[in-house]
C-alpha cells in the first residue's frame, strides 16, 4: 500500500485540491481493498451523475491500496526462490533507470557469499537481487530499455515508494471493466499536479503514472499494474480466472456483461445515472444483496458527497 497525498489539478492557472467527490472515490477504492476479508466479498454500488473520472479515481485508490513493493521482501527468501528457478529462465533486472534482460545461469559462491549468475557474465550478490524477477511467459527478450514513468510525479504524489520499483514490476493490482476510449483521456491526457510545499516543487503528471494501465503505457513490454477489460467483449480465461484485489466496473454495460466473473474479488460498480441501463444495473447489484451476510461500516470513508449514492454489503463467497 502507498499513501496518496496532495494531488490536485490546475484551473485557470491556480492549484486546486481534488474536490470532495473525487477524494471520496479515491478513498472508496482504498476502502474496498483494505476491508475485504478472505472469507467474504465486499460489493459496493455507487450511482454518480457522470461516469467521467469515477472509475479512474476509484481505480487509483484500489491500485494504491493493493500495491506491494516486492523489492522489500526478505532478500534471502527472494534469492532462494530465484536460485530454484530452472536454468535458462529469462530474468529481468534494473540497473539505474534501465531494465535489462538475461537468462539464469546458476549460483556461485565467492568469499562465502552466494551470487546469482546470469548470461553475459553478470552476477549479483544474494542481498542485492530484490529487483530481479523472472520475465513474464509471453515477454520477449529485449535489449536494455529505459523504464518509462514519471518518477518525479510518482515520488511527489506517493511519498515513500520507490518510483523505479513501481515501474519495473507487473502485477494486477486493479482491474477496470470499461471502455478504453473513454478512459484514455482521463488517464493520459488530463493533467494532475502535486501541491508545492516549502521543500518540494509542484510536479505534474497523469493518473496513469500511478495506475500504470497496460493499455496506455508507451511500450508493449512496459510493466503494468492496472488492467482494462472491455465492457462489451469476452475476456481471455487467464484474466477471467484471475483474482485481483478489486474490480472496478466503469458503467452499467460492463457490469451487466461481466458480473459473473471475478467472484472472489471485491467490486465497485459505478453506475452513471444517465445510462439507459442504470436501473437494470442497480437492480442487478441489489440482486447480489440476496447473499448479503452483513452490512459494512463505511464510516472511515465518510459520508458520500452530494451527487453520489451508495450501497455496500458483504456477501458469502461462492
Amino acid at each position: 500500500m502507498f499513501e496518496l497525498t496532495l494531488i490536485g489539478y490546475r484551473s485557470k492557472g491556480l492549484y486546486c485540491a481534488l474536490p470532495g467527490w473525487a477524494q471520496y472515490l479515491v478513498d472508496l477504492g482504498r476502502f474496498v481493498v483494505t476491508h475485504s476479508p478472505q472469507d467474504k466479498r465486499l460489493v459496493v454500488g455507487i450511482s454518480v451523475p457522470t461516469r467521467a473520472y469515477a472509475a479512474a479515481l476509484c481505480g487509483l485508490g484500489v491500485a494504491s491500496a493493493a500495491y506491494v513493493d516486492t523489492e522489500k521482501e526478505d532478500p534471502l527468501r527472494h534469492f532462494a526462490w530465484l536460485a530454484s528457478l530452472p536454468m535458462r529462465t529469462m530474468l529481468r533486472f534494473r540497473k539505474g533507470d534501465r531494465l535489462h534482460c538475461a537468462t539464469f545461469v546458476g549460483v556461485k559462491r565467492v568469499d562465502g557469499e552466494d551470487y546469482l549468475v546470469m548470461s553475459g557474465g553478470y552476477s549479483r550478490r544474494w542481498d542485492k537481487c530484490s529487483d530481479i524477477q523472472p520475465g513474464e511467459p509471453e515477454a520477449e527478450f529485449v535489449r536494455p530499455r529505459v523504464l518509462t514513468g514519471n518518477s518525479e510525479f510518482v515520488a511527489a504524489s506517493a511519498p515513500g515508494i520507490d518510483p523505479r520499483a513501481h515501474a519495473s514490476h507487473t502485477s494486477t493490482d486493479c482491474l477496470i471493466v470499461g471502455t478504453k476510449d473513454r478512459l484514455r483521456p482521463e488517464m493520459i491526457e488530463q493533467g494532475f499536479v502535486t501541491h508545492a510545499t516549502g521543500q518540494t516543487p509542484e510536479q505534474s503528471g497523469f493518473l496513469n503514472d500511478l495506475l500504470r494501465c497496460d493499455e496506455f503505457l508507451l511500450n508493449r513490454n512496459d510493466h503494468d499494474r492496472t488492467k482494462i477489460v472491455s465492457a462489451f467483449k469476452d475476456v481471455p480465461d487467464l484474466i477471467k480466472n484471475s483474482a485481483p484485489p478489486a474490480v472496478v466496473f466503469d458503467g452499467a454495460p460492463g457490469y451487466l456483461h461481466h458480473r459473473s466473473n471475478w467472484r472472489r474479488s471485491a467490486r465497485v460498480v459505478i453506475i452513471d445515472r444517465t445510462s439507459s441501463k442504470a436501473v437494470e444495473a442497480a437492480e442487478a447489484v441489489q440482486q447480489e444483496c440476496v447473499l448479503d451476510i452483513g452490512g459494512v461500516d463505511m464510516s472511515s470513508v465518510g459520508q458520500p458527497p452530494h451527487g453520489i449514492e451508495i450501497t455496500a454489503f458483504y456477501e458469502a463467497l461462492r
Partner: protein
Amino acid sequence: MKFEGAVALYEVAAHAVATRETIASPGTSHFVTEFNRLRRALDDFDKDATWQNFMRRCRRIQRELTTTPLSPSDPVFEIANSVDYLTSLLDAERGTYPADLLARGDLCAASLRDLSTDESNPLGSAAAAILTSGDLSRSGLVVPSRHLDRIKECLTTAASGIRLITERELSGLVGIESLVVIGPSSLYPLHLLSAPRAAVMCFVYFDWVRDRDRDTRLFPGSPIAPGVSFRSSPSTLVAVPDEGVDAATLVPVVDWDAMGRASSTNGDGSGDEASIVDANQFLLAGGHCVYLEAVEGPKICVINLEPGSKADLRFAETQTIGPDDYIVLRIAGENRDYIGEIADKDMGQDAARLRALQTEWKTLLHGRVRERGFSRVEQELRDLGVTRPYLLYRLAPDSIRTHNRNDFQLLMVYVGIEDRADEMWTAMGKIVNAHKRAGRRVRKLLEKALLETDTQALIQTGWVDVQLQENDAGTLSVFRVEARSPVVTPVAQDDLQVLHRVEPDLWHG
C-alpha cells in the same frame, strides 16, 4: 471531458433546484375535460376496438399538446384530420352504442375542432419569456424530438438564439446554467432530475396536468435522494375530477400487440417450423419497427454514441439489444445481409462453391426437421452429444458452422455426411473468415462514414442514413432503439430486419 467539466457537473448535481410553472389554456383544458368525461362514461366499452382507436388518438393529441410549444392550430398536430378521423369512427357506430356515449364522443371531437383554430401558444410564450429574461447563451429549452424542426422554426421567429435540446442530448450537456423544460417532469427520463445538467430548471406545463414528485434513488433505502430539489410541490388540488390529468398517464405506452399485427406477414407464428424464429420487436426512432432474433448467435452492428466521445462500433448479439442502442440496418436493396454480400465478394470465384456446401448441409438439416419434427431433432442432437444445438440458429441462412468442432462433426454425422465432415469444416471456416474480414471492413467503413456524419443530429433525431464510401455495402441506416417488446414472438425468417413504418397512434397513443 476535462476534469473541470466533471467538477462542474458534480457542482450542479449538488445544488440544482427546479420550479414548476403552470400555464392556463382554456382551449386545451376544455378538450381534456371532454376526453376525461368520455373515458369515465366508457366503462364497459373501453376494450372495444372503436373506442380504443378513439382513445389512442385523443391520448396522442393530449401528449403532443403537453410537450410541444406550438399553437394547437399548427399543422404538425393535424387536429383537423383527427377530428375527421374521430367523427368517422363515431359515425360508423351510430346505432350500435348508447346515444349518450356517442354524444360524449361528439363533444370530445367538437372540443378538438375548436382547438384546431386556436392560435394561442401559451407554452411557447411562457418558455420564451423565461429564457429571454436570462443569458440565452447559457440556457436551453428541452423539448421532445418529435416536431423538433417545426419548433425550431417557430421559436426562431419568436425569439432568436434559443437553444433547443432534446432529451437524448441532456447527458452530454456541459456549461448550461438554466433549462426550461416543456412538460411535466414525469414525461422525461429520471436522470433529468437525478443527474441534472443545469443549476436551475423550470418545468413549464398546462395547469390541468398533475405532475408528481419522483424518487431519484437507484438503490432503495439510500438516505439521500440525489439530484434536484424542487422549490414547490406539485399541485394536487383539482376541484373537478374531470379537469385534471395525472402526468404519469401521459407517458407513451407502446401497443406491442397492435404493432405486431401491423408489421409481420406471419404474425401468428404458424408455418414451417424451421422458417419460424423467436424474435423481439423493436420500436425505432422516427416511428419504425423491426424484428430481431431473440436466440443465441445472430449479431448486429451496434454503435455506442456518447456525447463528446468517438463513436464506438461493435457487433452484438441481437438478443442483447435494448433501448438507446444504435443499430445498423440495411433497408435499401434486396439483400439485408450486407456482411454476407461483402464476404462473397471477398471469396471471389470460390464463393459459389463454398455457399453451395453451406446450403447443402443446411438443406439436409431442414430435411431432418421436416421428417422428424423440430423438437425431436433438437433432442436427438443433444443425445448424440452436441453441446450447443441452437437448432433454430443452425437452420437460419446466416449461421455458418458451430463454434465447437466436435459439435460440427456430430451434426454432419446426424445429417448423413460424416465422411465429408472435414471438407465441410474447412469450407465453412473459409466462409467464417471471410465474414470476419467483411465485418472488420464494414466497421472501418462505418467508422469513417460516421466521422463525416453529424452525430449530434443523429442523437437529436435518432436515425440517419450512412452512405459508405465504397460501393460494396451501399447505404446503411442507423437507428436508435426506443423500446423493445417485453415478450418474444415467433415470426417468419423473412420478417427479420425488415423495417416497417408504425402508425403514430400505436406508440404515441
